[in-house]
């Protein structure tokens, strides 16, 4: 049985980026389900709903209007105060600003900091990280 994610949550205000990421994932067949949130608030709403499964992977953009990526992480922490979250959060951003990279490194819960665009290679890397000992050629 092929290893893949059960559910990936995309958090990005850019419609084109979300669509592109979706297409890439479909081409790779790397996840069963893709959830798309066009804003951080929408993502929180989706995650708050009881029926929503915990996504394995959350791809999070930083620069979004309204609630930005950093604020999302604060709200996300409050959601999972009582039970530990098993989601792997990866920051996927355009910002090459070293300040942002530093800031991400200091927050526990962020597994990686990647620059757009999302590629097959990156997704493969994340899958390996999430389910270690799986993936082709291991």
């Amino acid at each position: 049985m092929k290893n893949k994610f059960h559910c990936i949550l995309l958090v990005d205000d850019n419609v084109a980026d979300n669509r592109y990421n979706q297409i890439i994932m479909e081409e790779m067949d790397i996840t069963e389900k893709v959830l798309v949130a066009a804003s951080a608030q929408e993502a929180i709403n989706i995650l708050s709903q009881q029926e929503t499964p915990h996504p394995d992977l959350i791809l999070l953009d930083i620069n979004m209007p309204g609630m930005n990526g950093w604020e999302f992480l604060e709200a996300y922490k409050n959601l999972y105060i009582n039970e530990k979250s098993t989601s792997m959060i990866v920051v996927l951003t355009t910002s090459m600003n070293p300040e942002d990279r530093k800031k991400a490194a200091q927050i526990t819960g962020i597994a990686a900091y990647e620059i757009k665009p999302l590629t097959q290679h990156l997704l493969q890397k994340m899958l390996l990280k999430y389910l270690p000992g799986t993936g082709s050629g291991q």
Partner: protein
Amino acid sequence: MKPKRLKDISITKKLYFIVGAMAILIVVELFTLWFAIHTLSSLRAFVGAEGLWSKAQKDAVYHLRKYNQTHNEADWTDFKKFMEVPLGDHRTRLELLKPAPDMEIARQGFIQGRVHPEDIEGMIKLFRRFHNNHYISKAIKVWTTADSIIATLTPIADELHTDIVTGKSPDERMMQLTRDIDTINQQLTALEDDFSYTLGEGSRWLENLILKILLIVALTVEITGLLLTIAVTRSISKELKAINKATSKIAKGDFTARVNIFSKNEIGQVAADVNQMAEHLILSNKELEQVAYIASHDLQEPLRTISNFSGLFQRKYKDKLDADAEEYMTFINEATARMQSLVKDLLDYSTLGNHRSMITINCNKLLMEVMQDIDAAINQNEAEIHADPLPVIEGYAELKSLFQNLISNAIKFRKKDIPPVIHISAKGDEKEWLFSVSDNGIGMEAIYHERIFTIFQKLHSNSQYAGNGIGLAHCKKIVELHLGKIWVASEPGKGSIFYFTLPKHTTYEK
């Protein structure tokens, strides 16, 4: 108004104060000197007057004795005449002892005593001011005694005169009178000596005192001047040192350096201004960086979307595209890629030198590193790189990029059939280092010698030579970061020599 602290007072004022204080002390010195000379001169005049007194007294006694012998009325007249001198002085002494003396009477008395008119005022002042001084009062006592003794001469002389005139001059009486006159003369001689010696002693004492005073005042002037100057110099020096320390750090690129401010005077003001300038530098750098990052981010986003989806498009509809469509897509993709590259280069260019810090660079080692980094290009082109011994200099780390760009260009713009030969050298004078990077490549015409340093300027199309045309603009910016200049000497087909200067930095000795 709050009283100012001492160190906040303007330095100019302090310096003027020192000059003023010295001037005042020197005036005090000069006044002391003038007073001393004037007083000693008056003492000299008194001694002179005593001499006139003694001479007149001796002459009087001489003529009295002569009269005694000759009975000549002329001698008696002479005796009277000479007696006028001590009498005149006597009158002056009595007048000057009064609480409110009549100066005219005192003057006339001295004139009668044959004192030179120009000395009189000084002598009167000396008598009035210092009659309580040990020596002066002693001399006055002697004078007083002499006056009373010479007064006894007058009745004796008168008796003699009367006797001679009337013819009654018994020998006994005459001999007695003569003996009395001699006794008086002897007494007066002793007193005259005493008067002179006393004034002499007084003179020497005064001389000694004045010299001591002059010495003390002179020392005071010197020491005061020195101490004040040292104090002001030290505070100026301390403040300037603090400014120097911070400004040399700032000049080398560390804008976080701040000056310690010790006062609110002119220098303190400069220090405060320097701190403000450094603050502005940090802020404007931050702003520049932020703008650059935001601009590149905002520009990159749509570029990325185009790139992503045109790539997807080509992949997904590969079978459905004809040759024309393929060509159009290729143009789109290449243009997009180029623009992404340009935006990134622009970001790099605009943030170049934002975090500069001056370090010691061994150019020989630097060259080795560069050659390692572009090792592939060197081997591919069979390039030869020679270098003269290069100096160790103070510069910014960006210098490595400068060397890399120049050498990469020299390799890139080679003649097709001739492997690139590159030579690097440097020579320095006391002002600056002059580096040169020469090659045997394709060269360029004179009209392009300045244009090539402009950003995004290329002399060839992308199909001929790859690249965005940013390398030399980078080099220029790096050289200008060092406050140097860069230029090229080149002819088509004859290679190029790129020159750049790096000014040397002077640090003043502590």
